[in-house]
C-alpha cells in the first residue's frame, strides 16, 4: 500500500512562531482519518500544507506519491484529485448552482453533464430546492451543505473536511456523517476530517491524529486513541478537561 501523503520533518512558521512541526506522518488511501486538537494547534495548517495551499518552510512532502516541487502544472494535476470543505465555507458571489458547478466548469465539463452532477450533489445534501438561491444569503449550515455538495461534485480521490458540520443541526449532521461514510465506502474516497465533535470522530474515523502546539501528539487507530491514550494530555483533551 503506497501512502497518499507522506511528511518528514515538515515545519511551518508564521513570523518567529512555529505553528506546525510534524516529524513523520503517513496517510494511506481508502480510509477516513480524523484530526483532533485544541484551537490553534495547527490542524487547519496541516491540512493546508498537504492540500498544497500553504508552502511548508522545511521538510519533505509527498502527495499522491509525488515529491512536491511546487510547479504550477504539478499543483494543478494533484489538486484536481482533491477537494476541500474549508472552515469558513466561502461562497462565491452568485447562485448555489454557480458555486456547485464551479469545479466542473474549471475542468471544462460539458454543460449537460454539469447540470446533472450539480443536481445530484445538491440532492444528496438536501439542498436542491436552493439551486437558484443566492449563495451568500444562505444560513451558516446551509452554506456548509453547499460547500460539501460543491466538493463532492468533482468526485475527488481525497476529500478534506475542516469541521464540516460545525454549524449543522443534529439530524442533518447525522445525515452528513452517513454520506461521508457512504462516499468513503462506495467511491473509495480517502477522507481527512478535522472535527471538534469527539463522537463524530469516533463514529467515522478509522485512524486518528491528535494535534498539540503544532505537533502530532498521538496517532493510531481510533479505538486505541480513545480507550488507551498514551499521553496524559490526550486523556485530558478527550475528557474535555483541557
Amino acid at each position: 500500500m503506497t501512502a497518499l501523503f507522506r511528511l518528514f520533518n515538515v515545519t511551518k512558521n508564521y513570523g518567529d512562531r512555529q505553528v506546525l512541526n510534524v516529524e513523520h506522518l503517513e496517510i494511506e488511501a481508502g480510509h477516513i482519518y480524523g484530526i483532533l486538537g485544541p484551537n490553534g494547534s495547527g490542524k487547519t495548517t496541516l491540512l493546508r500544507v498537504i492540500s498544497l495551499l500553504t508552502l511548508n518552510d522545511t521538510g519533505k512532502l509527498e502527495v499522491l506519491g509525488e515529491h512536491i516541487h511546487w510547479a504550477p502544472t504539478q499543483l494543478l494535476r494533484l489538486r484536481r484529485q482533491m477537494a476541500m470543505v474549508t472552515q469558513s465555507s466561502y461562497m462565491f458571489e452568485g447562485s448555489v448552482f454557480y458555486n456547485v458547478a464551479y469545479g466542473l466548469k474549471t475542468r471544462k465539463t460539458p454543460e449537460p453533464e454539469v447540470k446533472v452532477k450539480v443536481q445530484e450533489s445538491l440532492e444528496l445534501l438536501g439542498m436542491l430546492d436552493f439551486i437558484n438561491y443566492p449563495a451568500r444569503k444562505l444560513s451558516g449550515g446551509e452554506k456548509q451543505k453547499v460547500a460539501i455538495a460543491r466538493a463532492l461534485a468533482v468526485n475527488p480521490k481525497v476529500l478534506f473536511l475542516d469541521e464540516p458540520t460545525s454549524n449543522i443541526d443534529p439530524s442533518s449532521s447525522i445525515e452528513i456523517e452517513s454520506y461521508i461514510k457512504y462516499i468513503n465506502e462506495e467511491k473509495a474516497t480517502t477522507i481527512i476530517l478535522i472535527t471538534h465533535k469527539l463522537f463524530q470522530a469516533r463514529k467515522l474515523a478509522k485512524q486518528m491524529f491528535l494535534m498539540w502546539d503544532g505537533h502530532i501528539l498521538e496517532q493510531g487507530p481510533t479505538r486505541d486513541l480513545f480507550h488507551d491514550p498514551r499521553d496524559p494530555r490526550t486523556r485530558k483533551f478527550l475528557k474535555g478537561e483541557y
Partner: protein
Amino acid sequence: MDVIWQGLKEGFMLILSLDQELIQVTLLSLHVSLTALIIAGIIGIPAGAFLALKNFHGRRLILNITYTLMGLPPVLAGLIVFLFLSNRGPLGDFQLLFTPTAMIIAQVILGFPLVCGLTARAVMTQQQEVYDTSVMLGATRTQAILTLIRESRIGIIAALTTALGRLIAEVGAVMMVGGNIQGKTRVLTTSIVLETRMGHDSRALGIGIILLLLAFIIMLIILKLEKRSFKDDSTIQII
C-alpha cells in the same frame, strides 16, 4: 437669478429643438469619453489586478504613483499629450494634434490611473479564501485570478463609473489637445467654456444641463447593468 431661469428654459429648448450642431457635439463627447473609458478599462483592469496580486520589487512604489495620478489635473495631462503630439514633439509626424484621437489619448491618460488604482484596491480587499476555494475546486491559476477579479466586480464597476464621470466632465485636457474646433473637436464641456466667453450665459447653462442629463443617463445604464450582475447584491440593513 434670471440667467438661471433663462438657462434652464434655453436648455430644454435646445434639447427639444434637436439642434444639429448640438447633437453632433454631444455625440462627439460620448464618442471621446466612452472610447477612452473602454481603452482605460481594457488596460487598467488587468494592470490593477496585476498590481494587487503580483509581488515584485517596486510594486508599492508603482501603486503609490498610480494613486497619485488618480488626481492628475486634466490640463496637465493635456499639456503632456500636447507636447508629445505637437509638430516638434516625438509623435509630431502622426499629425494627431487637434483631432478626436488626441482627445481620446489624453482622456485615456486621465482615466487609466483611476481604473487601475481602484481596481487594485478592489482586488486587494479580497480574502485569501477566494483564491484557495477556487484552486481547491480545480481552477488553474488563470481561472482563479479571473475568479478573484469577478468577485471584485462591485469595486471594478465603481472604478469605471468614477472614471467615466471624470472623463465626460473634464474640460482641461480636451481643450488643450482638441482645440475646441467647431464641427471637429468641440465637445459639451468646451462648448460651455466658449459660450460663456461669448456672453451666451444661458446657452452655456443649457449645454451644462444637457451634460448633466447625459451623465445621469449613463449612470442609470451602468446601475442597471450592475443590478443585472448582482441579483443577490447584499444590501446592508441598518436598523
